[in-house]
């Protein structure tokens, strides 16, 4: 299949008081007509990659091509073939929904008549027809994102960049937006999506790259990535830190990864959830350990990270959190709920 996006050893450093290596040799390939997910925590380099690919900033080193056009040398050609919707919902609050789309249409140099029909079409398609003539100030967060996406699509771009399209949205709006994005892919648009949510990447993307500190640390289909780290997380809450340590030892044989103790909570990623749950419960029962909670859940980005790097996503300071061995003492004060901030 031909490549819509090719990125080779991209590097970018931001100067200033604290120099930041935002990208440290990122390479990736996106096939035409597919959704590619860039998954990573804040500051991992996702947005910088998108800004380079959309010609907003220039890389320090490396090459990036969109539909065979170099993003630096043929920037204007690239711009006429792409759409960008960002996490900050870049729409003008003082204009109406319709005026926003028309403005972007005119700036895309579409004929006046096309601009007007496209605006009506898109507002309809995104459920904004009734709000079309209201200023964006009166829109909800979900409506703004939809309008932002609609504006990005006005020129029917063959390649679409979505930078954290659903960050900060409520579950209903997120679901609505996912459906819209799935619809686009059905029409053959190539999408590069950045996200912090494993669930989002899993649902939308056919290929994933996990980025961390400006590097791609893992790449593959959602299925292969999940297989690498176990498909389900078994989470057991215990009454004390001591019983948690005991439990971690008892659950050691369950999964491909060693159990992780986080305060009084033990987490272990497993391949077969129900089977692991039954084995685990039997083993706890045999040693007279009574858990306070016992849950199976989908892994979050946090879990992926832990599996790939041994670190949590927001762990720059939380060095105490280590995967626990048999005599594991990797205990962190339970001041933070496990997986906080991730959608379930």
């Amino acid at each position, binding site marked *: 299949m031909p490549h819509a996006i090719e990125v080779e050893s991209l590097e970018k450093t931001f100067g200033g008081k604290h120099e930041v290596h935002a990208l440290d040799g990122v390479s990736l390939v996106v096939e035409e007509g597919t959704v590619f997910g860039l998954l990573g925590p804040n500051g991992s380099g996702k947005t910088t990659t998108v800004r380079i690919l959309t010609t907003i900033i220039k890389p320090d080193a490396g090459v990036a091509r969109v539909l065979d056009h170099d993003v630096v040398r043929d920037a204007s050609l690239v711009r006429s073939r*792409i759409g960008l919707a*960002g996490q900050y919902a870049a729409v003008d609050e003082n204009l109406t929904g319709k005026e926003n789309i028309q403005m972007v249409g005119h700036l895309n140099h579409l004929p006046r008549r096309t601009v007007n029909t496209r605006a009506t079409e898109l507002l309809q398609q995104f459920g904004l027809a009734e709000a079309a003539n209201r200023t964006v100030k009166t829109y909800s967060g979900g409506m703004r994102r939809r309008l932002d996406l609609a504006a990005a699509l006005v020129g029917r771009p063959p390649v679409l960049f979505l930078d954290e399209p659903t960050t900060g949205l409520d579950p209903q709006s997120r679901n609505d937006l996912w459906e819209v994005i799935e619809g686009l892919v059905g029409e053959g648009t190539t999408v590069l999506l950045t996200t912090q949510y494993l669930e989002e990447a899993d649902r939308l993307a056919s290929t994933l790259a996990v980025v961390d500190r400006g590097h791609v640390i893992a790449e593959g289909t959602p299925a292969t990535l999940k297989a690498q780290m176990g498909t389900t997380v078994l989470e057991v809450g215990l009454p004390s830190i001591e019983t948690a340590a005991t439990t971690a030892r008892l659950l050691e044989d369950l999964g491909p990864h060693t159990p992780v103790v986080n305060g009084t909570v033990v987490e272990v990623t497993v391949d077969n959830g129900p089977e692991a749950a039954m084995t685990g419960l039997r083993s706890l029962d045999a040693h007279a350990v009574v858990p306070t909670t016992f849950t199976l859940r989908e892994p979050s980005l946090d879990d992926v990270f832990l599996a790939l790097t041994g670190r949590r996503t927001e762990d720059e300071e939380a060095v105490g959190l280590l995967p626990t061995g048999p005599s594991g003492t990797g205990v962190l004060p339970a001041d933070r709920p496990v997986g906080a901030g991730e959608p379930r």
Partner: protein
Amino acid sequence: MTAIATPPPRSVQPHRLLCALRWGVSDTLTIARRTILSYTRIPEALFFSTVQPIMFVLLFIYVFGGSIHIPGFSYVNYLMPGIFVQTVAFGSVNTSIGLAEDLQKGLIERFRALPMARSAVLAGRTTADLCRNVLTVIIITAVGLIVGFRPTAGAFSYAAGILLILLFAYALSWGFAVIGLSAPNSEVAQVISFPLLFPLTFASSAFVPVHNLPGWLQGFATYQPVSVTVSACRALMLGGPTATWVLQSLAWSVGLLAVLTPLAVHRYRTRT
């Protein structure tokens, strides 16, 4: 099949240039239109360009006016050219606030990823400001006539004075565009803008004769751009020797444009 590889005829070059120019103008108008639409929906911005000059006129004429005596002028006539220049100067703060807001909200990012003319974001914004200033000078002219402003030098000369003011305001817009593009957010843009404007508008010949100011201030107050433009307008609107002041004002405006336009464009290109 070799025909396909034939390079395009030379005549394509000027055509492409013409095309770029056409899109540049079209994009500038799109951005200008959007900026003007925005203004009409922000009551504060409209207040600044309409009610504020009226209040200044009333304040100076009825509160301070009684204590200020200008030989050879009625105070209303002396004051009005100053009010024109002060109002358009204050209005140019909108340029810095607006651009800082666009940066903050990610609109500039969106513009940069569009196949639009690079120059249109700044050109459109300053064009919109120019349109707003046209409205402002019309309002001030009307208010002036109501409170007794009687320009005596004729319509042609009056229009020349107005054009001089609009040109000066346009140059200032580019200066405030530089501030807007350099400030981290719109609040800071506003905070930086006013301390620059106050000495320019008040340590000037706009409201009082310069020879009433302390000696150390007189040099600055005579030759700074606001004073020079006010003096040129006074001469054009009320009569008197015009050439020196008009030339000085033109020199300031053209000079400021020559320095500030490339500076603003540079800030726009390099701001990440």
